[in-house]
């Protein structure tokens, strides 16, 4: 065969390279998808074992408030009531989000509408730095400042939902603020000009126009903060007191899904009921993070239509 014909019919070096490159990148992305599927499969298979092989009633699991997986109750079914942890997790999440939202939105308005110079020069870098502070550091500060402070005011041990709320508030504040700032900056400046041209004051413009237009973005930021608060493990575990009891008030020791997981999973035997019950909590955590994800998408879609 003549060399020209051969060169025309054979795959070129370039085409081979292209094929190989494409396969490599496909492999990488496939790996990520496999990891996600793997996480769901493993956590779900462990977490569902409590209900299918150990025969725990799902409703009892969600609503009973006695958590002692080693002990059986009068009917011979194990006592795995996750209500205290669920209440604790939702309690700290919502409380910290409620406190953080006005501060975060206020700071974001300050940074974009009132004093952009100070905002960009001082607040922005500090907030960026704070987003990166490791959660154990927040936990340590909570343990050495917040807990003694609460103890001196309310008495008791100082550990509890209130301490967890404070720590999470400081933790999610930078996250929510920076996302609110992005949302406010994305509002086109002619919205502001139009409102000011109508004779509205700066505050009227901010309140009635800018904040309205930025609402979906701000909501996304808040949900993001809540997702972070809900999944936070160590900082909360260090200050909440770790008692799997239904909390009487905000300053009595409580626990969250994450705190029970971190302190418990190493002390139980794989495959035992105690262990499976913990995996059920992990599954609950996974489903909640999925829920937050769906909510963020939903808000994004709602915001788009306007």
């Amino acid at each position, binding site marked *: 065969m003549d060399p020209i014909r051969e060169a025309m019919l054979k795959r070129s070096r370039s085409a081979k390279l292209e094929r190989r490159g494409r396969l490599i990148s496909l492999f990488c*992305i496939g790996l990520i998808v496999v990891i996600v599927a793997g996480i769901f499969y493993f956590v779900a298979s462990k977490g569902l074992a409590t209900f299918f092989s150990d025969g725990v009633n799902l409703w009892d699991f969600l609503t009973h408030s006695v958590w002692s997986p080693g002990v059986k109750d009068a009917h011979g079914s194990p006592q795995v009531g996750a209500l205290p942890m669920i209440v604790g997790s939702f309690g700290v999440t919502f409380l910290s989000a409620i406190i953080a939202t006005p501060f975060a939105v206020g700071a974001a308005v300050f940074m974009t509408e009132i004093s952009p110079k100070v905002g960009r020069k001082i*607040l922005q870098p500090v907030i960026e730095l704070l987003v990166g502070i490791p959660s154990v550091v927040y936990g340590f500060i909570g343990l050495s400042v917040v807990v003694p402070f609460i103890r001196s005011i309310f008495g008791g041990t100082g550990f509890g939902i209130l301490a967890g709320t404070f720590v999470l508030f400081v933790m999610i504040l930078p996250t929510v603020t920076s996302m609110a700032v992005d949302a406010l900056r994305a509002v086109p400046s002619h919205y502001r000009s139009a409102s000011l041209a109508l004779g509205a004051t700066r505050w009227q413009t901010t309140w009635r126009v800018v904040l309205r237009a930025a609402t979906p973005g701000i909501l996304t930021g808040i949900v993001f903060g809540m997702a972070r608060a809900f999944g936070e493990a160590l900082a909360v575990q260090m200050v909440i007191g770790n008692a799997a009891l239904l909390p009487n008030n905000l300053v009595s020791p409580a626990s969250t899904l994450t705190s029970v997981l971190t302190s418990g999973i190493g002390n139980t035997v794989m495959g035992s009921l105690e262990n499976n019950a913990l995996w059920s909590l992990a599954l609950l955590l996974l489903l909640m993070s999925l829920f937050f994800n769906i909510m963020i998408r939903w808000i994004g879609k709602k915001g788009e239509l306007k």
Partner: protein
Amino acid sequence: MNPKQADKLATGVLYTVAGIIIVILASLLGFILFQGLPHVSWHFLTSPASTFEAGGGIGIQLFNSFYLLLLAMVISVPIAIGAGIYLAEYAKKNWITDLIRTSIEILSSLPSVVVGLFGFLVFVLQFKMGFSILSGALALTVFNLPLLTRNVEDSLRQIHFTQREAGLALGLSRWETVVHVVIPEALPGIITGMILGAGRVFGEAAALIYTAGQSAPALDFTNWNPLNIASPLNIFRPAETLAVHIWKINSEGIQPDAAAVSAGASAVLILAVLLFNLVARYAGNRLYKKMTAS
């Protein structure tokens, strides 16, 4: 109240809010640094931790943190670049791509403790790696991948399409265009994202307590044989990192100077994160100037 007064009032309130936040943040940073820095000394940074007595350091933990970070980056960066290239250059607009994007989003929003538990189940138990640096690095990879991938994709997407067309017009294949034209230009963005990701990984603890373990066996820093159990390079030894150490001594530690040690370790951790931030900014700008014509 007329609108003018309302405006004044609101402005005053917003100034107060901003002031309160600055005070909180400043006192936070000040607290860590003023509490911690007096404890930081050469001895503190290099000597091993002690379990029962005062005067322990964080030498081994510090080394473990950096070693684990290095391994995690070595594993996750190539995967993230490959995946980012796929998403930015090859992915078509269809349901498969949507599914891939959704799963990356889910992975990035997973609580790190769930990632840690997954690592415990799969790497530590299933693959029988035990509590080891390798398990920890793999868990950190899972934790780090989604953000890195998104960063690579965003950086690649910012490159103007004319650059790609120029490459293709020269007869390069798509892959060659990506490797020789697009990636060099996107490199500053990619590197900035990686350094920021490294800062995040450096402070991560929840994903590590059940993968890399909570103990730091003594190391012999003269032994560089990676197969020896006492060697710092061994990837099958358990390795407590700095962040895990802070958590550990605060929740179950019995050292009399636990507060001092954790204050010092926190200060070191914060300074490291600060350093990563500064380096990310500086390196990004510098590289951009060096690699492009601007």
